[in-house]
C-alpha cells in the first residue's frame, strides 16, 4: 500500500449516476480482487473507499455510484486529471484452487466482482454470475461478465431486463445455487441480509462496506459486528468476510 497520483485515462457514464474510470499508476500495484483504494476528494476531509473493479495490464478500473458529495465530485473528473489514491487496501479475496464458483452482484456491488471474475476465469475455474439491479439502466458490465463467466443470469426488480425479482428471489431457482462450492456476494445490506437467511450450505464471502475513517487500520472507524459480539475492521480484517461470521 502507498500513496500515488493516478492519471485518469478514461471516464464513461454507464448509467444514471454510474461512472467508470480507467486509471494509470506511475508505479503499478500488485492487487487482488476485493481490495480497494482510498480516494482523496476536494469536497470531503476523509478519503472515500472505492473497490478495484477491474485491472487490465497495468490499468486499474473504478466504478462508482453517486450517493453524496464525495462520489458526486468524482463523477466530474475528466481524463488527464490526477487522482490522489492510497492502496491497494484490505485483504481481498483468497482465490480458491478449484471448485465451481458463483458471483452474486447487486447494483453497484456488481463492480468489484468483475475483477474477481477475470482472475477466477483466468485460473480456469468455472464461474457463474447472477447480476441484479433495480432497473435495466443500473445493470452494469453484463457484457464483460458474459465474456468471463460460463453463465450469466441477470435480474431486475422491475423486470426491465432479465428475470423479474430480487437477486435472492432468483437465486434459489438456479442450478448453481445447489452446485457452487463458494459464493462471492457484493451488494446493498438488505441483499446480504436476505442472502444470510437463505441459509446456503457452501461458504458465502461477502464484500462489506462501512463508513471509513482512514481505510488503513489507524482509527477503528470502520467497525462491523462479528457474531462473536465484538467488532472487526472492514479496512484491515476485510472488506471480504465470510457472511456467517458477520451480524448484519
Amino acid at each position: 500500500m502507498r500513496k500515488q497520483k493516478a492519471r485518469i485515462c478514461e471516464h464513461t457514464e454507464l448509467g444514471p449516476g454510474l461512472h467508470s474510470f480507467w486509471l494509470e499508476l506511475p508505479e503499478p500495484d500488485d492487487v487482488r480482487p476485493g481490495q480497494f483504494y482510498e480516494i482523496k476528494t476536494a469536497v470531503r476531509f476523509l478519503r472515500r473507499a472505492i473497490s478495484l473493479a477491474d485491472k487490465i495490464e497495468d490499468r486499474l478500473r473504478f466504478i462508482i455510484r453517486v450517493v453524496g458529495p464525495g462520489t458526486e465530485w468524482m463523477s466530474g473528473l475528466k481524463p488527464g486529471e490526477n487522482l490522489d489514491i492510497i492502496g491497494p487496501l484490505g485483504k481481498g479475496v483468497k482465490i480458491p484452487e478449484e471448485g465451481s464458483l458463483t458471483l452474486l452482484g447487486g447494483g453497484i456491488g456488481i463492480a468489484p466482482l468483475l475483477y474477481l471474475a477475470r482472475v477466477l476465469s483466468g485460473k480456469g475455474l468455472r464461474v457463474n454470475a447472477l447480476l441484479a439491479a433495480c432497473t435495466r439502466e443500473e445493470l452494469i458490465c453484463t457484457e464483460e461478465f458474459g465474456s468471463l463467466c460460463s453463465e450469466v443470469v441477470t435480474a431486475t426488480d422491475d423486470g426491465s431486463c432479465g428475470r423479474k425479482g430480487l437477486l435472492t428471489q432468483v437465486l434459489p431457482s438456479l442450478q448453481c445455487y445447489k452446485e457452487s462450492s463458494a459464493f462471492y456476494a457484493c451488494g446493498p445490506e438488505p441483499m446480504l441480509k436476505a442472502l444470510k437467511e437463505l441459509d446456503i450450505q457452501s461458504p458465502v464471502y461477502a464484500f462489506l462496506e462501512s463508513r471509513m475513517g482512514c481505510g488503513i487500520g489507524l482509527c477503528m472507524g470502520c467497525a462491523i459486528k462479528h457474531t462473536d459480539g465484538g467488532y472487526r475492521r472492514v479496512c484491515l480484517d476485510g472488506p471480504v468476510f465470510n457472511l456467517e461470521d458477520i451480524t448484519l
Partner: protein
Amino acid sequence: MNFEIILAGQRFANPLVLASGTFSYGLRYTHVIDRVGAIVTKGITVSGRAGNPPPRIWDTAETVVNSVGLENVGLERFSQEILPSLRFSTPVYVNLAGVTTDDFAMMLDSLGKEERVSGFELNLSCPNVKEGGQSIGQSASSVAEVTSVCRKLTAKPLWVKLTSNFCDVRETAVSAAEAGADAVVLLNTLSALLIDAGQRHPFLGAGSGGLSGPAIKPYVLYVVREVSKVIDTPIIASGGVVSGLDVIQYLLAGASLVQVGSVNLQDPEACLRILAEIEKWLNERDLKTLADLIGKLED
C-alpha cells in the same frame, strides 16, 4: 535548524505528537512515527472495550465526527502483545481512559513499570463513552482528584487531556496544574450530534460523537491562549492541525507541543509534510530554533 522541545524534563525531537485514536497503537507506519516527537496510543481501559456500534465516523470538508467509543484491547493485552511489538524509539505516551479513580491508578501502576512507556495522557475528556470520559473532565474537583492520585503513583510525565464541553476549561486546567500535571492537553473533541432526519434518529450508532478537524482550530487556538494566561504548566494543543502553519500558530499561542489527529486519517504521512512546511517557514524567516516561538504571540 533546531526543532527540539523540552517538556517536563523530556526531550522531544520536534513538537509533533500523534494524537490518541488516530494512529492506533503504533504498529503501522513506523516510518512516520520515527519522525515525530511522540506518539499517544489509542485510549486504553482496564478490561478493554468493544467500542460503539457503527456508523462511527462522518465528515464534511473541514470536520470529522467520530464515535469510536474507546475500542481497545485492554490493559493486559496492551502490555503483553502491543508494547513488545513496537518497532521505533519515539516516546510512547499511553492514553488512559478510566471510569473511576481506581481504574486510572491501576493502569498507571501496571504500565508505570514498563520501560517502553515514556509517560501518560489521562483521558478525562472522551465524549464517546457513557461513564468516565468527559464527565470526569467537566468537574474541576474530579480532575484534581484523578490527577493527584496518579501523580503520586508515577514519576513519569503525566499529561491531562481536557474538554471544554459544558465546563470552564480554564478552571479544570488550573486544577490539573495544581494537582501536579506535567502538561495539560487542550482539547479533546467537541460533543456533536448528527441526525438522520428521515429516520428521526441519531445518525451515529452511539447516538452522538466528537467533532474534530480544521474547522475547530480557531476555537482551540483561543482556548490555548486563554488557558496559557492562567497556568504556567506547559500546554499541548490538539485541534484541527493540518499544516505547518497551524503548528506554528499553536506554538505562538502558548503550546509547547502540538498534537496531530484527524489529518492522519486523510494521510498517514501528513506529519512528514507538516515537518517540511515548518522547516520551510523557519528558513524563509531565517529562524533557527522552533522552541523560541512558544508563547510569542503579541497582543
